[in-house]
Every structure is written in C-alpha cells, then in structure tokens.
C-alpha cells in the first residue's frame, strides 16, 4: 500500500519536474531568440552605417540627376532612420518577405537554397566535431601524460594555429595527387554536386557525399581540436575528484567508476561550451564555403558585403543567428538531460 502511494507521489513529482523543465527550456529559447534578434539588429545597424548603396549612382558620368538619386534613396528606405528601417525589414522577414537585393531581385526565393546548403555543410561537420572532440578529450585525459596524449594535444594546438582557409587549401593540396593518380575526382574540390550531371537516386547521393568529405574535414578538424582540449581538462578534473575515489571505495572497478560516475559529470560543462562557441565556429564555415565553392549563407554574406547589399546581409545574418539559436537550444536540452540539478 505504501509502495503504491509512494509510486503515485513519485509519478506526480516527476511530471511536476517535467513541467518545470519544459518551462525552463521555453524560457531559454525566448532568451536566445532575444539575443539573436539583438545580434541581427547590430549587424543591420553596422551595415546601414557602413554601406553606401548610392555611391555608384553618384559617380556616374554624366552625373545622375539629384531627383533620381533621391527617388532611389526613398525606394531603398534610406530616408528613414535605421531602427524603423530594421523594423520594416523584420516585419517583412517574419512573414517570409526579406526584401529585395540591391539590384532589385527578390531575396526570399534564394533563402531556402542558401540555408539548405549551409545546413548540409555545417551539420555533419558540427556533429562529428562534438563527437570526436569529446571522444579524443576523454581518451586523452584517461591516459594523461602518455606519449599518445602528448601527441594528440600537440596536434590539437597545431590545428588551432592553422587558419581554416589555409586548412581547406592544404587539404586540396594534399588530395590533389590522389585525384590525379585516379584520373578522376574521387573527392571533388568544389560545389555540392557535379554540375550538369544527370545522376539520380543512390548515385546522386554518392556524388553529394563525395563532395562533402573534404569540406566536412575542413570544418570539423579545428572544432575537434577545440572541443577535445576542453573535454580533456573537464575529464581530468573529474578523474581526480573525490566522488570518483569514493565510488571506487565502494568497490567499483576503475573503468566502471569512470563510466558510471565520471563520464556524465565530465560532459556537463561541454553543453554550455558548444552553445557559447558555435557562433565563433561559424566563421570556419564561412571560409569553407568560399574555398570549396558551396553557395551557402557564408558565401552569400561575404558577397553581399562586397556588393554593400544591406538586405542580403541582414537576411543571411538572421538565418545564421537562427542556426546559432537552434544549436544553443539543443545544448540547453542536452544540459537538462545530463544534469538533473538544472531541472529544478
């Protein structure tokens, strides 16, 4: 009877804590969205301050009449202060209308292609980076001080010292002889798929995957180096912790104590780290897109800056920020699962 009662009470407590957890997740999401909007506003403001879309008109020969320039300015909304202009653009953006490019094309049409390309590029790289980063970090910490550990740490340091745009090119440089020897592009260097090919089904998928290999490595390697160093430090701390020693004192073998008691504790600090550093890692993605000729968000953004196209900059930034929010939110979720202390 008491068992039953307790069981029911425990059930009630569980659902109450589940409700709290969901509430907490929603609150985190709202906070992250707010921060994301602020970041987009900042970029928009910077772009508005920096870009001069009328420069070309002003310098034409013969000079463009002032009235024409004014009309163009009004059309671009340049007579409004930045904030209302951003408001207008944002109001459109939430309904799927991202405005027009500087040369008058509709932006919305390109959004899904660009975002899709970036996600196909960043997602596998990011997931691999987290998996391998944590894996190497733990592996190293458990044999800290050994030659293998020292070597992997040195490699990590070296990888972090090589800029992504160099890494991509070096990968190409290293792979070139293989492609040449094979007489065909085993792993192609550029684009998402072989242009103009009429592959279908599995063959098309294979083609895409082969295009993906080198850029994914370029994106993942520096991140693996980055995460593994933090993971190693976290695991080292756990390895020397009193609770692990106590667990062994109860009769758990070393390995079992680490798996049952240490692993989870060591992974906990990684969740906020991923959330916090993903924005920084996006830079790597931008370079990679340019180097491997993927027409994703990063490529779009850089081109737009070159063309001083504020609307495209804002759109690309917004989409990237949404990506950051989503990753951050996944990290929040992971933290909630890993650390029951955060559930109350």
């Amino acid at each position, binding site marked *: 009877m008491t068992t039953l009662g307790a069981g029911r009470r425990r059930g009630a407590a569980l659902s109450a804590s589940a409700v709290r957890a969901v509430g907490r997740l929603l609150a985190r999401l709202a906070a992250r969205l707010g921060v994301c909007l602020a970041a987009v506003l900042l*970029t928009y403001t910077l772009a508005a301050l920096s*870009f001069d879309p009328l420069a070309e008109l002003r310098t034409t020969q013969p000079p463009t009449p002032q009235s024409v320039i004014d009309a163009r300015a009004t059309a671009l909304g340049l007579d409004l202060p930045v904030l209302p202009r951003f408001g207008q653009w944002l109001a459109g953006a939430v309904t799927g209308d991202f405005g027009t490019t500087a040369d008058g094309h509709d932006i919305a049409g390109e959004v899904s292609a660009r975002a899709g390309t970036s996600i196909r590029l960043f997602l596998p790289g990011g997931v691999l980076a987290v998996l391998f980063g944590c894996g190497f970090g733990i592996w190293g910490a458990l044999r800290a001080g050994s030659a293998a550990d020292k070597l992997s740490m040195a490699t990590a340091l070296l990888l972090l010292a090589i800029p992504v745009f160099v890494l991509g090119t070096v990968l190409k440089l290293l792979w070139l002889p293989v492609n040449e020897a094979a007489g065909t592009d085993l792993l192609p260097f550029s684009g998402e798929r072989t242009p103009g090919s009429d592959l279908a089904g599995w063959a098309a998928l294979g083609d895409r995957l082969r295009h993906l290999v080198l850029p994914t490595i370029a994106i993942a390697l520096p991140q693996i180096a980055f995460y593994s160093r933090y993971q190693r430090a976290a695991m080292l701390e756990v390895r020397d912790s009193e609770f692990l020693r106590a667990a062994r004192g109860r009769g758990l073998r070393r390995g079992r104590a680490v798996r049952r008691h240490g692993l989870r504790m060591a992974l906990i600090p990684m969740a906020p780290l991923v959330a916090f550093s993903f924005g920084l890692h996006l830079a790597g993605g931008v370079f990679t897109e340019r180097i491997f000729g993927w027409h994703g968000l990063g490529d779009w953004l850089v081109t737009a*800056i070159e063309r001083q196209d504020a609307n495209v900059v804002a759109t690309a930034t917004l989409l*990237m920020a949404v990506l*950051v929010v989503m990753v951050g939110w996944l990290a929040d979720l992971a933290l909630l699962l890993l650390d029951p202390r955060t559930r109350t």
Partner: protein
Amino acid sequence: MNVHRPIALTGAGLLALLVLAASVGPLLLPFTHTDQDLRNVLAAPSGAHPLGTARLGEDMLALCLRGLQKSLVIGLLAAVLTTALSALVGTVAGYLGGVADRVLMMVVDVLLVLPPILAVAVLSPALRGSSWLVLVLLIATFQWMVTSRVVRARARSLRVAGYVVAAENTGASTTRIVTRHLLPQMVPLLAIDCTLNVASAVLAEAGLSYFGFGVQPPDVSLGTLVATGTGSALTFPWVFLAPVGFLTATVLAAAMLGEGLRDDA
C-alpha cells in the same frame, strides 16, 4: 605561472625569433618586398630567392617578413587593447554585479552570436582607405568577449574572497579595491589571455585580409599574402606555403606560450 615549462619556453623562443626576423630581417636582405625581379617571375625557391618569387618577381622572403611585421604589430596591439577592454568590462561586471553585470553580459552574448570577424567585415566598406590602426581597433572591439567572461568569473569569485571583504570592512573605496586587490590577482590570468589573444588577433587579421576586408594593398600582411597565394597554391605552392608557414608559426608560438603559462596558473 611557470615560465620554465618546455612548451612555454619553446613558444617564447619561437615568438622572439619571429619578432627578431620581422624587425631586423628586412634590413639584411638584398631586396625590399617591392623590388621586382622580372626575369624571375614565380620562380621556385633557389639560392637567390630562398622562398621563391611572386607574381611580379618579388622575393617571397622579403614579402613574408614584411607581412610578418604588419601581422605581428596588428596582433600585439589588438591583443593588448582586447585584454585591457576585457579586464575593464570583466572586473566591473564581476565585482559590481547587479544591473551592470547583467547589461554587460547581455552585450557579450549578443556579440558572441555571430563570428566577430563578420562584424568587422560588414564595417569594412566604410573604412576603405583608413589607416590599419582602425583595423586594430575593430579587431579589439569584436574580440574582447571571451576573455571578459573569464575575467568576470574570476572577479566574481574574488568578490567574496576574505581579503576583499576585509578591505570593504575597513571602508576602502571601489577604486582601491579594484586596483589594489582585484587587478593584481588577475595579472597572471591577463598575461596568459593576452598571449592567447595575440594568436586570435593574428588569425583575425589574416581572415579579414583573406576576404579583402583587412590590410589593403599596396600594404601586405601574412593574410593578404596567403590570400594572393591561394589561387596559385596548386600550381606554384611556395607562393602559398611560405606565408602559411610564417602565419602558422606565429600563431602557434603565441598559443604555446599562453598554454604553457596557463596549465600552471
């Protein structure tokens, strides 16, 4: 901080060597970085040109040393500025807490959503033609967030440290507490982060220059050299690999020094 750890020593030595090469090297070379040896265009490394020559026959070594000079100066200045800014923001936020803390940390969060390099890039059209010092300022403006978080965490823990409370109890002013009790504790931490910031700043400059948003021609930096070299990386590798070597060595040296110091702090 133990300066005598092998990794820290190696980093320091390498960095010193690079600084020396950048400052003295160009004086010892028979070419300046603008001299064109038109009979030897895009020549492979040889006795006359140990690192080969570039598109217009410029000596690669001279170019690299010149670029190294610029990259180092930008990196060092930006790192010092970055660290000063983070120390200021971090201590204020961490020690005062409350509203100041919340506002400053919100700013940090906002700036961390997107790669800082993109913010600088967005501003670059407005800065065409201005001095490279502006670039230094911009790099620092968008790079201080990570260190400031570390400093803030430290300041927060120091806020309840016995001696800080003791000083408050004697009626010491906030300025006195920050300058006498908080900052001295942070010197090692700041030194380490400053070193690591050199590495990031050099990388940031290179990245911006790679996209054409950084150092503008005719000036050269390691970033612009790598950018120009990339196109011929598969055909004339030395044009690419030479600046890459210098760039990697610089970043690695700073990172090794910083890490070597940190492991012990």
